């Protein structure tokens, strides 16, 4: 304990207007981060009859509905691979993203009792909420491999890029959660906006269709305004192979927007967090 004494020696005083993220402190609290993330996973499936199977059922049913709707009814092109696979490869990141943003943006308000009673870096709250969804993602990923075997889709080396696209998706979810979570403390309107956003997002992102159907002249705007579109393309590419190469300018602009949201989110969060306990 005494070896940590330097981190415990501290001066508490009114903070400056703009505070950067204190990474050494976050590192110090890493165990709490895992505990909180694990709690989020445990709590979600406690007292449910089929537990983690929910993590499988939701994307599976959505996949079936989308396949029927977009392939059979709307007759959209699949780009070569089985339509079910095309949808599922997109649902994989989208489901993670939308769950992460939902839990992340509501996390601070639902941690009210912690915020008003004890100190730890507040950033851990939305970050652990986002991280807690990684378990569901992992389970869905396993299902994905089973579907690939079922549809006899070959595995390509591009699959190694999957963690990279996952990281981008997680960064987007975290960035948005920082903004929305901190805003939610002050304006509970956010909790009404988020379900609406994720529902709309599911239809305007290339989940039920492939991005090739987007007209050329709108492409840049589309990918910039919705970075998830580029990341979904990335997932399809790494799972389904070369035929699904993403549109690189779109992926790049989307990544830059994500980075911007993440950095500004962190600064906004840091400046807002000092009032959390007073106004929550």
């Amino acid at each position, binding site marked *: 304990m005494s070896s940590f004494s330097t981190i415990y020696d501290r001066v508490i005083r009114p903070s400056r207007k703009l505070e950067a993220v204190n990474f050494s402190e976050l590192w110090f609290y890493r*165990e709490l981060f895992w505990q909180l993330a694990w709690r989020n996973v445990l709590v979600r499936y406690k007292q449910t009859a089929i537990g983690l199977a929910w993590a499988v059922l939701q994307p599976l049913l959505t996949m079936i509905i989308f396949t029927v709707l977009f392939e059979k009814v709307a007759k959209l092109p699949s780009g070569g691979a089985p339509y079910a696979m095309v949808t599922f490869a997109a649902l994989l990141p989208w489901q993670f993203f939308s769950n992460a943003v939902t839990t992340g943006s509501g996390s601070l308000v639902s941690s009210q009792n912690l915020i008003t009673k004890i100190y730890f870096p507040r950033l851990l709250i939305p970050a652990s909420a986002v991280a807690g969804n990684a378990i569901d993602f992992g389970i869905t990923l396993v299902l994905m491999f089973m579907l690939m075997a079922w549809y006899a889709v070959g595995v390509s080396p591009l699959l190694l890029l999957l963690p990279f696209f996952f990281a981008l998706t997680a960064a987007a979810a975290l960035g948005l959660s920082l903004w929305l979570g901190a805003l939610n403390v002050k304006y509970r309107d956010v909790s009404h906006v988020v379900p609406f956003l994720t529902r709309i997002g599911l239809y305007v992102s290339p989940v039920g269709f492939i991005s090739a159907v987007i007209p050329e002249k709108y492409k840049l705007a589309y990918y910039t305004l919705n970075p998830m579109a580029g990341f979904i393309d990335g997932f399809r590419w790494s799972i389904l192979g070369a035929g699904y190469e993403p549109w690189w300018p779109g992926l790049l602009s989307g990544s830059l927007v994500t980075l911007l949201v993440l950095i500004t989110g962190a600064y906004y969060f840091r400046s807002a967090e000092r009032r959390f306990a007073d106004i929550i």
Partner: protein
Amino acid sequence: MSDPIISVRGLGKKYHLGIASRHDTLRDRLADTAARLFRRKETSSAATTEFWALTDVSFDIQPGEVVGIIGRNGAGKSTLLKLLSQITEPTTGEIRLRGRVASLLEVGTGFHPELTGRENVFLNGAILGMTQAEIRKKFDEIVDFAGIEKFLDTPVKRYSSGMYVRLAFAVAAHLEPEILIVDEVLAVGDSAFQRKCLGKMQDVSARGRTVLFVSHNMAAVTRLCQRAILMQDGKVVMEGPHQKVVPAYLHGGFSTMSEKAWPPGKRPGSSSAHLLSTRLRRLDGSTCETADIREPVGIETRYEVLTNGQIMIPNYHVFNEDGTCLFVISDIRSPWYRQPRPAGVYESVAWIPGNYLAEGTLIVGVALTTPQPEQVHYYERDVIACQVVDRMEGDSARGDYGLQLPGVIRPLLEWQTQTLN
């Protein structure tokens, strides 16, 4: 003397009253901004109501000291703790801390009802700043202290409130901080468990840790702390050995008074009755701040009934300094018991006999109720208080015994002693 482990200089905390309610939704904010654009002056007035919960608080605490922070409700004690615990940020001044801080503003912070006892121990331990290795090492001790071995794998939502509190406190008790900040957590659980908690805190201080302890329980402050800091209206008004500060708080007008009257317009009540004044009095009619244990003490209220025809029953709620309710009493002897009252001003006095309650603080809440359908016209909690003292002249129940006596009542009973054979 070595360097202080806690050093507070010029600490202040300002709250903006009304902001939280004013800008709760984005719509309000937009409306407010729009209104300001059109230069409506009155819109900004409500938002600028400021309130200083703490002003210019400075003190030092040496390593190993156990310090009690006392003061009546609203004196700024909780705000000070929140600042020391880093939960909220000071507006002015600074705090220097040298050492690991554990703050217990409540027990069981972060306990999740859906999780089992075992899971909650690990989660709560981590929240309080213990490492996983530390928790694993102390796990058996914690479970043992709480006495809940059999229910370790049951979700805590199925625990009785006693079990819940014991487990929560057990985790907190096994923290090994250099600085422990405690807020009234001893006000929970049964008295056996409270004693266990006090014992644990004594252990902590015996091991040379620094403890900062906020409490209304003067007996606990006196027992645990060497030094006390008395706060009033957001300022430190007195600090020093508890022998000096605790009596000053209890007798010197810093604490709840034994008499209170409300001016017109501020009177608590309903449209049919309101409270004018209340006090504790002696038989001779004088107001009593300190009552001899042998003397009767009267709880008096004066109230005005504004409308004819309702049944109204005054009732008094008496607590001791630990927050234990000693009794609740209704006036069933008055001529208006079960009878509608005509409008008018009334006085009701209930007499607590002498040689009845133990020494200590009596804290009284007064209420006026209409039964069936029940309507509470007013209930002023903890509104007046007085000290009951035992002068130890040998004719009270303690006889010549001079040390601390337990028990909330101290009646003089009929004894029969005779020699046999």
